[in-house]
């Protein structure tokens, strides 16, 4: 394998990993920008979406129906989560809502252990599109290709939604100035519920892609992606949706090339490196690498 081919192969790895991070991060950032809530339970929506898809598929639904229904279940779970756990806490200290989201994680993960059992389960429902695509000496797994294309499509749709629709503009307005947006008559609950719903849909979809790549699901699967998405959100300037996307890709690339370029003895330090990066960004560029001036006052 030539070094250029090697580089491109790693590039594709990073692109597809970054795409999933971006999908997860958008939901996290959307909710954060509106509520200043870091929702750790966001990752568990990936888990719930994946389990729902698998169960519906096992119950005999056609693949695509199962996927649509499963992703929808993830979205609805997000709405329920907001209604039961976060709405009663609206306006209380940031730390309290953060801790609440931790408690929700404990609740959902142990609930899943109880309900689905602790064991890893194979997730092969997309296996019929498994084979790889050979481009020259490059091998692209089709699931990667789908991930990248699907993510791009969603990103474009999201951008249009945020830019053009009243609801999208409302979300930005609420993120900008909560008080003023109430004064002009933006229905706050509807905007918050929408943000949770959309974010949770994306989480469900990311769960599908994540599980399809890994080929398995387990009750605790949501935690690592949400922590990573967290870092991605910080890289992009917490709360900014374009930033979330860029942060997701930057993190994907950083992780892949960290492992690719460093000797094995240091590969284990990957996550430490990721978090050192996070702390440095928080300190030096708290507005994220996008650096929009408007983000600064968030800190």
């Amino acid at each position, binding site marked *: 394998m030539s070094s250029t081919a090697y580089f491109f192969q790693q590039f594709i790895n990073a692109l597809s990993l970054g795409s999933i991070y971006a999908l997860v991060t958008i939901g996290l950032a959307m909710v954060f920008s509106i509520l200043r809530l870091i929702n750790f339970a966001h990752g568990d929506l990936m888990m719930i979406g994946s389990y729902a898809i698998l169960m519906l598929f096992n119950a005999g639904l056609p693949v695509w129906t199962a996927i649509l229904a499963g992703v929808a279940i993830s979205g609805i779970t997000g709405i329920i989560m907001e209604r039961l756990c976060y709405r009663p806490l609206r306006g209380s200290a940031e730390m309290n809502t953060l801790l609440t989201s931790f408690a929700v994680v404990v609740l959902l993960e142990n609930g899943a252990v109880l309900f689905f059992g602790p064991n890893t389960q194979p997730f092969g429902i997309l296996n019929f599109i498994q084979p790889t695509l050979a481009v020259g000496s490059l091998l692209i797994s089709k699931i990667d290709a789908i991930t990248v294309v699907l993510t791009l499509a969603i990103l474009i749709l999201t951008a249009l939604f945020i830019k053009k629709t*009243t609801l999208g*503009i*409302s979300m*930005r*307005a609420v993120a*900008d*100035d909560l*008080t*003023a*947006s*109430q*004064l*002009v*008559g*933006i*229905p*706050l*609950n509807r905007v918050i519920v929408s943000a949770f719903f959309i974010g949770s849909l994306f989480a469900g979809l990311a769960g599908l892609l994540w599980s399809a790549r890994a080929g398995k699901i387990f009750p605790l699967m949501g935690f690592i992606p949400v922590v990573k998405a967290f870092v991605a959100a910080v890289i992009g300037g917490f709360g900014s949706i374009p930033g979330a996307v860029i942060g997701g890709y930057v993190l994907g690339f950083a992780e892949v090339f960290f492992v690719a370029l460093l000797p094995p003895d240091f590969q284990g330090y990957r996550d430490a490196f990721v978090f050192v990066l996070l702390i440095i960004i928080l300190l030096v560029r708290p507005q994220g690498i996008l650096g*929009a001036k*408007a983000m600064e006052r968030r800190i």
Partner: protein
Amino acid sequence: MILQVTDLEVFYGNIQALHGISFNVEEGETVTIIGSNGAGKSTTLLTIAGLLKPGKGEIKYLGTSTKTLPADRIVRRGISLCPEGRRIFSSLTVYENLIMGAVQRRDRKKIRADVKWVLSLFPDLNSRLDQAGGTLSGGQQQMLAIGRSLMSRPKLLILDEPSLGLAPVLVNQIFNVIATLKNDGTTVLLVEQNARRALEIADRGYVIETGRITMEGSSTFLKSNDQVKSAYLGG
């Protein structure tokens, strides 16, 4: 009577900000509330707008109570508060800011017509529709804020310190717009530190001090009152 406030009491935690104030606004009137900093003017307005919940008292709008309604429902009923400090959406464009003012409305065609109308009131904004709100000058931001409030087509427009921190030329411009609105028949509740200008334009006025209404009457009466003169009109 479009707005009737009775014995309103508001608390911030344990601190009482309003000690039972009462006032009313008739349809088509322009009413001003004057008072010094911290007297409770903004608190009163935010309570009417539904952002603060009253401890005691009643707020009646067109005969029905609004004190338990959320802010967005109050806007839909026809009250629009243009807040102190403008609070425009700085990362949204001027056009988007205006659209947000009409977020409760569904009549797209009329909204577009109203954007034109607001732009005719504030021609300065015309060339900046795609500019981010945060990049506007202070005066333009104030115009945008008023314009945004007008976009909900309110029956009662509440303006909180619209002239604060503006150059005299701009103050004139703002008050001219208020006069236009008044002539068009909009009911306006105006809170101002610039009491002289406020009393010039208003039909009636109230004086608020440390959370209580201490004086009320027609603008002419207040303008000629010695206490008002010495405290708010610079002797």
